[in-house]
């Protein structure tokens, strides 16, 4: 159990993190989301004991974080980096030893993980001989090498092709099944939505939304409509101009719109049927997290943090 208790961090004039409290439990993935510069990375660095809070307290399993917790924690920073001129194998052994595991154990686990990522024959290659995506995988292995209980992934999928992103996703879900406490920071809402059990939204250094993905989405109700059609889509513009809907996504044949000002799904359906040639799909759904985030962060001065508990 990771607990962040009313933590504040100030950089000279900028209040980077303002009385943030959150908790993450074992066997669950907590998504930390927010736009760039919201305070995600600063919060993570305090959890990783790279920096310390000005006020407040961070504990893991009831004990204040410190050098001891660094050993049971794996951290994949957003800014990736390895020793460029060092060989993959030696690098992983070294990073494992820094986490306090013996060299032979580090070697064994590193080989096992590289195997998992189809990278067993990179062992004696230098990092600067690898492609960016390959380096990414090595970096991920260095994060999980010492079998940590607490895992922090900051934008883990950036720079990965879809196949490897999927592989990584399944690995992260496995780690969750093993009972690890996982923190997943991203500004890509759809990834968070897919992966996380709980979410915590940060904007301007403050938590604006906190709860399980299920509860948060339910609390916003089914106010979003998905459409797939063939033919003219001018009805969308008309509805939007009239202030009845807000278009979230729009492609040639498909769209997702948010109902506003008490517009009923029926009104959208009627408008669509009056105009399109064929309607393939009409669906009333919960809004995507992105939408929720925009409505929450947009009006964050009118306190929106008590959406759900």
């Amino acid at each position, binding site marked *: 159990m990771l607990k962040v208790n009313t933590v504040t961090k100030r*950089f*000279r004039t900028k209040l980077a993190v303002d009385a943030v409290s959150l908790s993450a439990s074992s066997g669950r993935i907590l998504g930390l989301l927010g736009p760039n510069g919201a305070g995600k990375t600063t919060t993570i*660095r305090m959890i*990783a*004991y*790279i*920096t*310390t809070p000005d006020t407040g307290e961070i504990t893991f399993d009831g004990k204040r974080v410190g*050098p001891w917790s*660094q050993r049971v*924690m794996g*951290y994949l*920073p957003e*800014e*990736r*980096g*390895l*020793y*460029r*001129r*060092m060989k993959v194998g*030696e690098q992983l052994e*070294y*990073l494992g*030893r*820094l*986490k*306090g595991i013996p060299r032979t154990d580090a070697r064994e686990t590193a080989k096992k993980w590289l195997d998992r990522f189809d990278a067993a024959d990179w062992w004696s290659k230098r990092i600067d001989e690898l492609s960016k995506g390959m380096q990414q995988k090595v*970096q991920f292995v*260095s994060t999980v090498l010492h079998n940590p209980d607490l895992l922090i992934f900051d934008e883990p999928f950036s720079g990965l092709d879809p196949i490897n992103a999927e592989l990584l996703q399944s690995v992260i879900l496995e780690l969750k099944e093993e009972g690890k406490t996982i923190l997943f920071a991203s500004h890509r809402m759809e990834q968070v939505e897919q992966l996380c059990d709980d979410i915590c939204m940060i904007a301007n250094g403050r938590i604006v939304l906190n709860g399980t993905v299920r509860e948060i989405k339910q609390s916003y109700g089914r106010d979003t409509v998905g459409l797939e059609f063939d033919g003219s889509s001018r009805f969308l513009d008309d509805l939007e101009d009239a202030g009845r809907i807000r278009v979230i996504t729009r492609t040639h044949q498909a769209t997702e719109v948010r109902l506003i000002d008490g517009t009923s799904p029926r009104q959208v359906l009627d408008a669509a049927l009056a105009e399109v040639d064929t309607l393939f799909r009409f669906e009333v759904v919960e809004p995507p997290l992105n939408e929720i985030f925009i409505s929450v962060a947009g009006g964050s001065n009118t306190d929106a943090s008590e959406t759900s508990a």
Partner: protein
Amino acid sequence: MSQIPVIAHREYTQRVRSKAFIIATALGPILMLVLLAVPILAAVFSSEEEARTIAVVDQSEVIGDYLDFPGNYEVEETRQTIDELRARVDAGELSGYLVLPPSLLSGDGAARYYSRGGGGIMATERIEDSVRDAVREARILQTGAPDAVLGILSERVDVQMIQITDEGERTDSTQILAVFGYFMGFLIYICVILYGAIVMRGVIEEKTSRISELIASSARPFDLMMGKVLGIGAMGLTQWLIWIFAGVGLTFVAGLVLGSVMDPTLIDGDAAGAAAATPQFRQFLPDIPSLFPVYFLLFFLGGYLLYSSLMAAIGSAVEQEADAQQFMWIVIMPLIIPTVLIVNVMSNPDGVLATTMSLIPLFSPIVMVVRMAATNVPWWEIWLSLVLLAGAFVFAIWISSRIYRVGILSYGKRPTFKELARWMREA
């Protein structure tokens, strides 16, 4: 549990196995030989100055007889006119011509040397010396001074300096003592340039390769800095040891080869000669306490590590190597100050200045070594100085780790002292 050994081990093994290290180790001695050979060759060649022909117009009619130029000068007494002489100089027949006016004897006039310039300081000095000696001799003889006076004037005057120490008297060899100080300063300077720069680059590399955040989530910056400085320090020592062993080995082999080729009686004769020369030679060396080499090594190591950790601090404070230049005075100034003051230290090795400086960590490696050679430094002063040096080393590592920590966290801005103070409190 400290991670210093793990970090130092990586720094050491990675670097010792690198191509750069192997090449530098192989080429280092060659470069050193070249550096040594250049001044020697230069000296050899410059001593064989080209022959000069100088015409002397002796209007005094006397001084010319006493002129005594070195062997490679060809002197030609002449009565040619100035115009003729100038033409010969222009034609390259003469290097120049010397005009000695009659008034020179009475002490009013000045000798004039005309040339097309060049020849350098050495030639100028030779001509000056020769003319001065000749004029002086001519003037003395003119007064009719007896030979005895001349003899007295040309006699050498020796003054021997004997230092009274607790163990008895010993020859005071202040000049030679200075060598230890300069040598130490030079040695530390070379090592800081060679290896301190590697430490600095290593710290900068942690940041530019962006591994610093990963490392900071696994190890304390203090351990990282200490491990880096110690690991790279060990690498430097390895390189020197390889050079020393190779040098000793080569000398030994060369001796064996020469021995098998040369007439053994010749070698015996040489050995006897060398043995006979030793006591004389020893007189020139100051009496130095037997522990001196040990202390020298300790002060060298301490100084080297302290200056390396300053380089680490500089590396922590900058974003890229080019920015480091503006901070180099932090390392250069403390090396220059004691070097400049070595003469003062030697002239009064027990004075307040010398004693104080020999305790101040950044100066002590140079100043204490000079003092130890120059006087009897109480053992507690030596050890106090060493302890202070070690303390300063750890403190410098600590400071650089704080700068490093703030450096990777802040968004590209320099850490303020206030921020540094907070880091020191919290970590």
